[in-house]
């Protein structure tokens, strides 16, 4: 029996299946707790306590919430498109979950009982086009939102769905460009190779040669686009309470609503993982070369931990932003995408392309980034401030004879 | 034809009217309490005073006379020039209102008249906002003056409308004014309460909250009532009325001005005759009997079911073995739809009209005067639509028989299927009909209450009261008068028009006017409605 387990675990395919099961549970738990974290963070930022009644420090709140979601009456309004209405939350949830398949959680390792030369990837599926897979899958998520809005047969929901679709499509473009830049810089499309490519030394620290140093603007663009992709504030126009009464999930209740919720947070985790993997050295811990390169299982577990912490931090930033910045207007949102992000990200691609073609050292892109900032600052349209009100007022007073 | 000038505007008016009438008709809001178009003129309230242009006694020059004249008592004369918009008139109204309110308790919050009170209206429009009275107000007790009426003496403005009504219209003279001057009061003679059959009208004509209806006392505030234009179903006079309702409930009936029919009045029997509308014993579900079992299917099955049963009976027993009994409480439209259904299934079917309830003789008012033109008549025929049903039956042609013949036919077992419509507010089924009903093969009973016919019926179709239905009644004079539905049908019921509409293979919502238009194609009498003219509220 033990041998069989060992042999399953030693096989990349078998290991992938086991990892999948573990991940499913782990991610769902993480999602539940990130909802709690969100509520806590929002409370702290607003000088409140947040959930603190269920369990110590409110730690059992996610359990209570989950039970509530499951036990609530599940209402399907009469005039909805039933099939699509039921399908939509599952669609968005499944799409958010399958993205985890290609995330490189801990790099290469081997179990203690395995032979030298045999090696495993701590990843569900190590495929050559991992990055493209993520892009493809995550853009499917828009279907769930649009279908939900459409099937609800409610004009507000429909608006929500349409907004979400337009927004996701727009931000897909800069996102793709930025990822293209990273592909050019590292020369890989396979996610784990991209992480490995950042193992170099920077400022004397092993494993600190992060893409972030070379493409800070790229990282920022990716981060903001990910916010928009995940429908998070300040880009959550698809679910505005004020104008859309909740947007595409207005008509949903109970666990269907819960699935939308879970999907949003799962989406956050995927995109955080992606950002960390692309720009922040994935599972690499700066300055500890054993941990970064060893193939022992112990090192792998440590790397997973490091990765987890980095993801947690990015998620925290997500939340922090949500409770700081108010929502954009829809035209602003579109303008930022098409007039701001798309040109900037194109400039980054060109920049990286030149560097690669001319075989210049990678640090040249830092200068290039500075140049981009300067150009943007110079090209930023100057709004014409309204002036001269006082003067016009005085004239009016004189005309009306005081 | 006379032309007079009011406030500088010339008005054409008929002769033999007073200036007040002419002014009200032309849209002048002239305050008045004692004047009522249906009563004699006493000119006692002094609110309607006007200025009049008269020749100077010496110089013969035309000028505004220094004294004010009651417009309700001054007949129009060609070229007469009057005005209401002068300072003097405004001041007169202001002072009159102050006097009226001197001893008035001003308890509008608990007064049932509040909201339709002319003291309130005139105070707001013509009066002052506060009283200068410092003495203690006179208190007058309220008096129980009749079985249906209460008198709150301290709210009274002594317009004497109620006294004149009892004298001139009811002809019973129960009310009188006792004492004089500031002590005068309305009262009854000792031991002779207000008991005439029109006493509800004194409450209507009282411009303030002095005479109140015991039945409506403290039930509702009038501003929350909604009005539906209806026709009283109490007798064949066809008095036009307002059904005042709120929250799905009828609260009171009020007469609606209709010259030539009921003028401004209605009788108490009709006024309080709506209680059956909210009778808890009313049938409220469709019932289909199968042997000893009854079931209550959805209303949507009724048209299919009825058509199937009647067609089966017609093909099994012959189309002459089908019959329908119409009720004089049905509206013409409903009767016509039912006839269309029955005759559509069985062209040879027999039609008849149910019993016409009567109660003694017509009672005319003023009582005791045998004047040839009574001011009000309560008809002996206690149903609203005998003539209408007769017209529909005549229009239908074919085999139309009397009620007795119908009963006999049924008793002989010559009816394989029949539709018997009731809708009477009381138990109307005669003994012979009750025993004959059992012999009808497939009996559909449409009624409001349980009776011998509904017990014998295979299918019981609950009927709605007139307040829930719409259509038209034809009164004893042959006037076709429409009425609208006031409240939603009782839970579990459908408006009669609605299911009959479906039976007659019409789709959509029953619309009385549309049905009437179709009826008018064969029966032109239904093309012409008698619609009473509206009176402006200020001409009360």
């Amino acid at each position, binding site marked *: 029996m033990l041998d069989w387990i060992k042999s399953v675990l030693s096989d990349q395919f078998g290991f992938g299946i086991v990892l999948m099961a573990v991940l499913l549970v782990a991610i769902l738990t993480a999602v539940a707790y990130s909802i709690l974290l969100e509520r806590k*963070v929002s409370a*702290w*930022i*607003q*000088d*409140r*306590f947040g959930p603190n009644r269920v369990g110590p420090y409110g730690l059992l709140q996610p359990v209570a919430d989950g039970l509530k979601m499951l036990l609530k009456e599940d209402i399907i309004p009469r005039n909805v498109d039933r099939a699509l209405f039921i399908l939509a939350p599952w669609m968005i949830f499944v799409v958010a979950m399958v993205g985890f398949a290609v995330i490189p959680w801990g790099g290469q390792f081997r179990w203690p009982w395995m032979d030298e030369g045999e090696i495993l990837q701590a990843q569900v599926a190590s495929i050559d086009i991992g990055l493209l897979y993520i892009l493809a899958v995550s853009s499917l998520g828009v279907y769930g939102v649009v279908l939900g809005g459409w099937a609800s047969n409610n004009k507000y929901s429909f608006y929500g769905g349409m907004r979400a679709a337009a927004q996701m499509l727009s931000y897909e473009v800069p996102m793709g460009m930025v990822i293209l830049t990273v592909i050019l810089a590292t020369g890989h499309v396979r996610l784990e190779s991209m992480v490995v490519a950042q193992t170099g030394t920077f400022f004397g620290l092993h494993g600190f040669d992060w893409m972030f140093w070379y493409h800070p603007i790229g990282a*920022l663009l990716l981060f903001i686009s990910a916010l928009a992709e995940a429908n998070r504030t300040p880009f959550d126009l698809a679910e505005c309470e004020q104008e859309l009464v909740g947007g595409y999930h207005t008509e949903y209740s109970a666990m269907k609503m819960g699935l939308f919720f879970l999907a949003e947070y799962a989406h956050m985790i995927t995109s955080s993982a992606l950002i960390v993997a692309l720009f922040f050295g994935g599972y690499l811990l700066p300055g500890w070369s054993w941990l970064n390169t060893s193939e022992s299982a112990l090192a792998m577990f440590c790397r997973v931990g490091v990765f987890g912490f980095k993801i947690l931090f990015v998620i925290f930033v997500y939340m*922090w*932003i949500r*409770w*700081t*910045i108010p929502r954009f207007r829809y035209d602003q949102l579109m303008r930022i995408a098409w007039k701001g992000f798309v040109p900037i990200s194109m400039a980054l691609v060109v920049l990286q392309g030149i560097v690669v073609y001319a075989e210049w050292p990678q640090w040249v892109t830092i200068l290039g980034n500075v140049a981009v900032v300067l150009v*943007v*600052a110079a090209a*930023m349209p*100057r*709004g014409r*401030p*309204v*002036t*001269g*009100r*006082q003067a016009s*007022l*005085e004239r009016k*007073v*004189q005309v*009306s004879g*005081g | 034809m006379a032309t007079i000038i009011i406030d500088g505007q010339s008005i054409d008016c008929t002769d033999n009217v007073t200036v007040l009438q002419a002014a009200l008709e032309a849209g002048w809001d002239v305050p008045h309490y004692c004047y009522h178009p249906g009563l004699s003129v006493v000119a006692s309230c002094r609110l309607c005073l006007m200025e009049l242009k008269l020749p100077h006694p010496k110089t013969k020059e035309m000028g505004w006379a220094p004294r004010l004249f009651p417009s309700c008592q001054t007949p129009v004369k060609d070229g007469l020039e009057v005005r209401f918009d002068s300072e003097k008139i405004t001041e007169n109204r202001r002072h009159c209102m102050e006097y009226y309110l001197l001893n008035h*308790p001003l*308890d509008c*919050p*608990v007064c049932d008249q509040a909201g339709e009170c002319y003291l309130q209206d005139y105070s707001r*429009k013509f009066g002052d906002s506060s009283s200068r009275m410092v003495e203690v107000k006179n208190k007058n007790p309220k008096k129980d003056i009749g079985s249906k009426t209460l008198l709150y003496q301290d709210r009274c403005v002594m317009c004497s409308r109620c006294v004149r009504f009892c004298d001139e219209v009811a002809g019973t003279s129960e009310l009188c004014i006792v004492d004089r001057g500031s002590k005068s009061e309305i009262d009854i003679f000792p031991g002779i309460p207000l008991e005439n059959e029109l006493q509800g009208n004194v409450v209507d004509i009282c411009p303030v909250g002095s005479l109140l209806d015991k039945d409506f*006392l*403290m*039930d509702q*505030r009038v*501003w*929350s009532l909604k009005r539906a234009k209806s026709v009283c179903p109490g007798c064949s006079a066809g008095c036009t009325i307002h059904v005042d309702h709120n929250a799905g409930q009828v609260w009171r009936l009020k007469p609606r001005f209709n010259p030539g029919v009921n003028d401004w009045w209605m009788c108490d029997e009709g006024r309080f005759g709506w209680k059956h509308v909210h009778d808890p014993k009313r049938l409220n579900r469709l019932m289909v009997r199968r042997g000893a079992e009854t079931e209550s299917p959805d209303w949507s099955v009724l048209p299919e079911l009825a058509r199937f049963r009647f067609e089966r009976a017609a093909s099994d027993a012959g189309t002459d073995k089908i019959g329908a009994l119409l009720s004089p409480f049905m509206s013409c439209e409903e009767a016509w739809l039912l006839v269309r259904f029955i005759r559509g299934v069985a062209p040879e079917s027999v039609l008849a009209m149910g019993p016409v309830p009567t109660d003694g003789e017509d009672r005319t008012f003023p009582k005791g005067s045998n004047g040839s033109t009574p001011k009000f008549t309560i008809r002996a025929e206690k149903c609203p639509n005998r003539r209408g049903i007769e017209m529909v039956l005549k229009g239908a042609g074919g085999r139309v028989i009397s009620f007795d013949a119908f009963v006999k036919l049924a008793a002989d077992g010559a009816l394989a299927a029949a539709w018997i419509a009731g809708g009477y507010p009381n138990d109307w089924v005669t003994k012979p009909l009750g025993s004959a009903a059992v012999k009808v093969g497939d009996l559909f009973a449409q009624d409001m209450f349980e009776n011998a016919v509904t017990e014998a019926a295979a299918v019981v179709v609950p009927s709605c009261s007139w307040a829930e239905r719409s259509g038209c009644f034809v009164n004893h004079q042959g006037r076709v008068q429409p009425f609208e539905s006031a409240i939603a049908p009782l839970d579990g019921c459908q408006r009669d028009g609605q299911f009959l509409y479906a039976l007659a293979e019409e789709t959509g919502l029953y619309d009385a006017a549309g049905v009437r238009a179709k009826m008018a194609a064969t029966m032109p009498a239904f093309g012409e409605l008698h619609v009473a003219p509206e009176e402006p509220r200020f001409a009360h």
Partner: protein
Amino acid sequence: MDSDQVEQRPARDWKATDVICVDQPELTTAERLYLPQVFGGLATTFRHMFKKRVREQTVVQYPEQKREMRKEIYRGVHRLNRDEQGRVACVACFMCETACPAHCIHIEGALSPWEDREKYPIKFDIDELRCIYCGMCEEACPVDAIELTPEYHLVGSTRDEMIYDREKLLMVYDRTKEDKPRKGPAVTGY
């Protein structure tokens, strides 16, 4: 007929200096770049995350701690006042029912059994779930019989429980009269 009686107000004597218009300031480069401002905002919220003392001082931990309400003006649960003889002070005039924008008051009036009073409510229901606590009813009442109290812990486990009837409303009065005595009602003879 009212409008022409409204007096024409004399024109206000405006001076140019009475109104000061503030011109929109021009944005600096940092402000136009937007992101520096965002970071400023993030810093502020971050600081707040660690202000434990502020948190503890400002948050009212509801069931354990309760907030003191301004009893003269706080609009909580209704009460029906009693008159000097302990009878319900309401005269069933329906003014509150008429004024209520939420249509949550339901009254049934009747002739009162007392000599000195004309009408009184035999039924007086307020649906506290429908109520929006606007206080219009209190405003409308001619005898100051209905008042809103500073009580805000309004709980019930069924909807029916939240429909306060006459007795319950009188009980609220008995409970709160010490704390907030009835306003001196208008002198009326209803």
